[in-house]
């Protein structure tokens, strides 16, 4: 793929890619711009990028008048717990499907798999009443339990486990290792990339969960971030400065993590590529 690069060629390339990147990221730039713009200048026509001064009033309002930090923590707890539990149960089940032989194995797997396509909307109303009976409404488990019931993790891990050379496992078994030890000592250490990929996926999915959280969480201090943002939109129809400030604050953790771990995250996601 190497071409003879000359100054013009390289320059053009930079230009093209640069423009593409900037256009693509422009909505976010505009969001940040609006977040720090004084209110009167937000609705001007023509829209101005450079405000006469930068203001923290919107950010301040979000942080002082709303339990924003609490929302962030709630999302963090839910996403982390969902990811951890999901990892544990999916590793066990994925291993069982990939490496253990038992009757009915494929049937059960396909059953689990086909449930992957159940849309949440169909379960919301019954789930609500189930959670009530378990006295779990407005709690963290109410949110992460339905999430960890999704079979996506099993699917991913099983795919990966299938590709681990049988020889590794055979050697261990000859040494007398039971399944649990095989899993722990042989399979898992080799599965870092898959586990990482799955963790990223589950984390993002839980973080983004919207519809069910909207129904199940009622108290202001229990809302997760996406629902908190929606509540903000409901409270301030046209206060775009506030909405964009809240959006910006909500993006900040993701932005920071991404800037620090970009390579790892992308690699983790790329991992699911050839395996599907």
């Amino acid at each position: 793929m190497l071409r003879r690069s000359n100054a013009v060629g390289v320059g053009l390339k930079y230009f093209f890619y640069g423009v593409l990147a900037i256009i693509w990221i422009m909505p976010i730039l505009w969001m940040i711009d609006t977040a720090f713009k004084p209110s009167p200048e937000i609705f001007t026509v023509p829209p101005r990028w450079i405000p006469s001064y930068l203001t923290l009033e919107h950010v301040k309002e979000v942080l002082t008048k709303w339990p924003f930090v609490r929302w962030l923590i709630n999302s963090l707890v839910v996403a982390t717990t969902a990811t951890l539990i999901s990892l544990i149960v999916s590793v066990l089940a994925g291993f069982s499907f990939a490496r253990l032989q038992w009757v009915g194995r494929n049937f059960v797997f396909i059953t689990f798999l086909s449930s992957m396509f159940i849309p949440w909307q169909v379960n919301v109303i019954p789930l609500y009443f189930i959670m009530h009976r378990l006295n779990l409404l407005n709690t963290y488990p109410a949110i992460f339990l339905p999430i960890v019931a999704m079979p996506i993790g099993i699917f991913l891990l099983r795919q990966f486990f299938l590709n681990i050379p049988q020889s590794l496992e055979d050697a261990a078994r000859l040494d007398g290792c039971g399944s649990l030890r095989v899993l722990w000592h042989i399979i898992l250490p080799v599965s870092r990339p898959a586990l990482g990929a799955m963790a990223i996926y589950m984390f993002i999915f839980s973080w983004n969960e919207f519809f069910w959280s909207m129904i199940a969480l009622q108290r202001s201090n229990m809302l997760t971030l996406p629902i908190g943002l929606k509540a903000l939109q409901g409270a301030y129809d046209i206060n775009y400065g506030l909405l964009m400030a809240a959006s910006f604050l909500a993006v900040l953790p993701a932005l920071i993590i991404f800037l620090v771990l970009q390579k790892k995250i992308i690699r983790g996601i790329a991992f699911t590529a050839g395996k599907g």
Partner: protein
Amino acid sequence: MLKTGLFFGKRGHRSQIEGLLFILPYAFLWGFFLIWPLAYGFFISLHKWDPLRGSKFIGLANYVKLFRSPIFWNAFFNTFEFAGIAVPLIIILGLVFALLMQRMSIRGGRFIEASLFFPYLLTVSIVSLVWKWLFDPDVGLVLYYSSRLGLHLPTFLADKFWALPAIAFATAWWLAGYRMVIFKAAMGDIPPELYESAELDGAGGYKKFRHITLPLLRPAILFALILTTISGFRVFGQVIMMTAGGPGRSSEVLALYLYRRGFDYLQMGLAAAVGFILFVIILIITVISFRFLGFESRL
């Protein structure tokens, strides 16, 4: 079936129990929080369900009502329209970006890739708010800049024909980056020798893409296609936050239709029925895709 397994000797016996034990934790969660609500939901769909005024069993009447309702069919076709626009857009953009990233050999590649990927890390609320703001007919950047360029674009979110495509585009902006990463990784798996030998045979860029890249990328593309299609059918957040189904009902998709029946009109039996129909649609699509595209072997 289980009984015969138990007779396969000591090893088989142990494997059988182990196999089941290992899936038990997940199976418990699955049964309780995914399947039981599903069954319960189906039960609800067979009723005129009002927990406070009293519920009444009406069999399949809800389903009949839905199939007779033009508003339901409107939502049905809108959903297909949305998926029909958003899904190809997401996949194609992902593919194009992946190709561009692969060919790019300049510094700052990380920044470009980051820009294209980053929207995926946003939540649906943020994506909706920002794009609603961008599409605003008065002060939105999209209409302002396009009018400056001499284009007279429609008012998108307020336009009967353009509302869904506009939402689809915002969705593509949001999700294409993720597909880009997946495709790029899959491309990276293609051995360069294939390209080299093709070049020796005088193949140009397009030929190389068509005959090497595309076929070898097929599994990844198909996989992404199926998952994206499924999420396309389930779309909800962007629609309710950007247009709430409007103008009129031109962007009302099935999930929103379900939500309205259940949570606005308190017709929960009907809503549960819609949910079930949505489930069946997705199931059919999945089964067809798997059959058609030969995924059985991969299992």
